[in-house]
């Protein structure tokens, strides 16, 4: 039985995370009638546990429940006994991979999506990224340039509140920043030595966490675990910001627990007319109508919806006349880096210290415009990391000496690389012929590996990390050049790439499908290349930019 709603919205936004929040805010504040459909439930602030000590939990944050129902999700540091039910239940939300191509897919289904638990690191791409193909001949340029998106980076940064420091480094454009968070002694030394000896820039992480009151939200109070919620809304997530604004506009409805199974088409007009969703709890099916449909469900999930919406006109997936849908899946190469100990500082860790939910960032220094080219790989990588005192739970021995060793601790230093993932045709997703999720919706089959370029790049990243720690005076340096499983960066982008040529791409530069004039994908699916920077800021800026364009088209009655 399918219930049909009589209301025809101007836009349905599928997904309520970082990009969906922006789409809903922009469109509803412009006076358009918007419906947000979110597959998950609402998270009331009473579920925030950022101040709850571990001993008050049943299993002190070692709950075996994670292994049972979140065997995939638990690989994410942010999925814990405190909040695991914000992450999808892996038993209910399956996907498949070939045996020799493991891929980990980290997902949330709650209002706010992954913005509830994201890492908050916010970096701009530059023309070294948007025009990467022109730079080194591999792949395709984006159909837009830095100058096109820069005003939207400004708009998003000003609204979100990104703390950071301008460095004047062209590989990582400066932005509209709140005051930066402080560096520790180890990080200041790293910045100084790496700059002097190697000419590289170590900067404080640019993070979507407030260092001063901003847009009615309080500054960070340094309790630490943002991923468990924040009662002062000091880190950016959509429910506390964009969604709140959208709902306050009076033009926006939000339906939670609405799992979109497919887009409904008016085939005669070649227009999307609405979507069908299944209520997560009742399993009843509903159809809602709109003049435009905007997928912001997360790259793979949006592509899954398009595949599952195939019609006679689009037998290989909706808006897939190019055959490119699902192709060019990317996720940053991570796992390589180095760690060590600083012996110059005698600070001791204390559980009562403020906890800065941020680290340092090292700006890409390989294969820059006008610089030398690395002989073994194209593109580049950045590092995230930090240096601070920590407890030494791994100390050998037992008894009084062990207790003392734990407290004496170490002054650690570590760097972890984030390398560009090349856009490759053979990294793709499709609909699994058999597997369905708990609501009967066909599941994805994901095919992805990191290739020789990523391996060579991460080997270089490990060596470069060790070199920088050595330059800083670290001891007991341990390198890791092993790549983590694809998906582990949780920066999956691509699968519905933008492009100028409708035969070679799914979306135009305004995130509109080439094939269907009122169907858009405004999440990371449109990325043409991955850069090495964390992608969320760019997704939000693209969504804001494309919504301005869509609003203009509504004004001209073109939709």
């Amino acid at each position, binding site marked *: 039985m399918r219930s049909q709603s009589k209301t025809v919205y101007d836009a349905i936004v599928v997904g309520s995370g970082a990009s969906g929040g922006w789409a809903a805010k922009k469109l509803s504040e412009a006076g358009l009638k918007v419906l947000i459909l979110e597959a998950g439930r609402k998270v009331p602030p009473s579920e925030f546990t950022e101040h709850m000590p571990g001993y008050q939990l049943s299993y002190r944050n070692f709950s075996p429940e994670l292994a049972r129902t979140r065997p995939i999700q638990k690989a994410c540091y942010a999925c814990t006994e405190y909040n695991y039910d914000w992450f999808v239940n892996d038993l209910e939300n399956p996907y498949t991979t070939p045996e020799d191509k493991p891929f980990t897919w980290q997902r949330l289904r709650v209002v706010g999506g992954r913005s509830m638990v994201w890492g908050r690191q916010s970096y701009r791409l530059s023309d070294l990224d948007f025009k990467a193909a022109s730079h080194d001949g591999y792949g395709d340029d984006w159909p837009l340039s830095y100058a096109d998106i820069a005003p939207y980076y400004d708009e998003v940064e000003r609204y979100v509140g990104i703390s950071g420091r301008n460095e004047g480094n062209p590989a990582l454009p400066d932005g509209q920043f709140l005051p930066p968070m402080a560096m520790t002694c180890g990080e200041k030394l790293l910045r100084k030595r790496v700059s002097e000896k190697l000419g590289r820039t170590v900067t404080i992480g640019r993070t979507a966490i407030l260092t001063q009151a901003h847009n009615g939200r309080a500054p960070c109070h340094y*309790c630490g675990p943002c991923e468990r919620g924040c009662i002062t809304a000091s880190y950016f997530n959509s429910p506390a910001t964009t969604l709140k604004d959208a709902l306050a506009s009076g033009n926006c409805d939000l339906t939670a627990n609405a799992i979109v199974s497919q887009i409904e088409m008016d085939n005669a007009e070649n227009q999307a007319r609405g979507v069908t969703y299944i209520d997560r709890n009742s399993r009843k099916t509903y159809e809602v109508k709109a003049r435009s449909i905007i997928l912001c469900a997360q790259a793979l999930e949006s592509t899954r919806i398009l595949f599952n919406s195939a019609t006679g006109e689009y037998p290989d997936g909706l808006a897939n006349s190019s055959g490119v849908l699902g192709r060019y899946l990317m996720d940053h190469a991570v796992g390589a880096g180095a760690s060590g100990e600083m012996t110059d500082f005698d600070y001791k860790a204390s*559980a009562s210290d*403020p906890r800065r939910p941020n680290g340092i960032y090292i700006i890409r220094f390989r294969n820059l415009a006008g610089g030398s080219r690395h002989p073994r790989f194209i593109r580049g990588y950045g590092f995230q990391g930090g240096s601070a005192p920590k407890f030494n739970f791994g100390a050998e*021995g037992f008894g009084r000496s062990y207790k003392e060793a734990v407290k004496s601790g170490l002054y650690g230093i570590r760097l972890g690389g984030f390398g560009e993932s090349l856009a490759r045709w053979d990294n793709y997703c499709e609909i699994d012929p058999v597997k369905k999720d708990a609501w009967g919706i066909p599941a994805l089959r994901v095919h992805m590996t990191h290739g020789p370029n990523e391996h060579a790049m991460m080997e270089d990243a490990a060596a470069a990390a060790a070199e920088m720690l050595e330059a800083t005076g670290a001891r007991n340096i341990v390198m890791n050049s092993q790549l983590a499983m694809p998906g582990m960066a949780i920066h999956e982008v691509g699968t519905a790439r933008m492009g100028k040529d409708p035969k070679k791409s799914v979306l135009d530069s305004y995130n509109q499908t080439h094939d269907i004039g009122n169907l858009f994908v405004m999440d990371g699916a449109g990325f043409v290349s991955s850069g090495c920077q964390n992608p969320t800021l760019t997704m939000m800026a693209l969504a804001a930019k494309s919504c301005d364009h869509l609003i203009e088209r509504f004004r001209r009655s073109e939709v």
Partner: protein
Amino acid sequence: MKRRELFRRSVLGSLAAAFTSVASGRPALSNPEAREFPSGHDASKELARSDWKPTFLDEHQNRTLTDLGDLIIPKTDTPGAGAAQVNRFIDHLLNAESREIQSQFLDSLAYLDGACRERYGSAFIHIPKKHQVEFLNLIAYPHRLVNWGDNRSEFPGHTHFNNLKDWISRAYYNSEAGMKELGWSGTSFHGSFSGCEHPEGAHR
């Protein structure tokens, strides 16, 4: 809802879900209701009950774990594993763990008794403390056996010791007593993060 009821629901709920999914070949839908933690929620109070009895370990295993806990994390100027009821928490957690993890733990505990019987003629809890310490000194550090002409073989004692120590250390340092020992003061609100406060140029 009472805590005991919450716990019963979560354990029974997940067992039921696992069973349904095996039986029907289709995953059961998880409870859509969120887990909330009402103010004052403190699961560790449940472990402090005066009528507490182990539910996973037997009496002998529980005593072995308790003795071992007090040797690895003894009472010093701060509480030790005993006062933090580390054995009770581990029993509670093991009860919910997978069979594989349960047997790894029991194997390590059994190793202690086996090796002590061989060496001292009695199980770990029945030998004098002097011998317990002597025995732990033998297994507490990385220990490689090398013979001329033989391949190197790893000494299993250290692996078992580290397994048990890891459980005890995690249980202790995540207990209220353990967190306080590490400096936890109960407050999470910090006005600022000052970072390095040395004058510019102090770090060369």
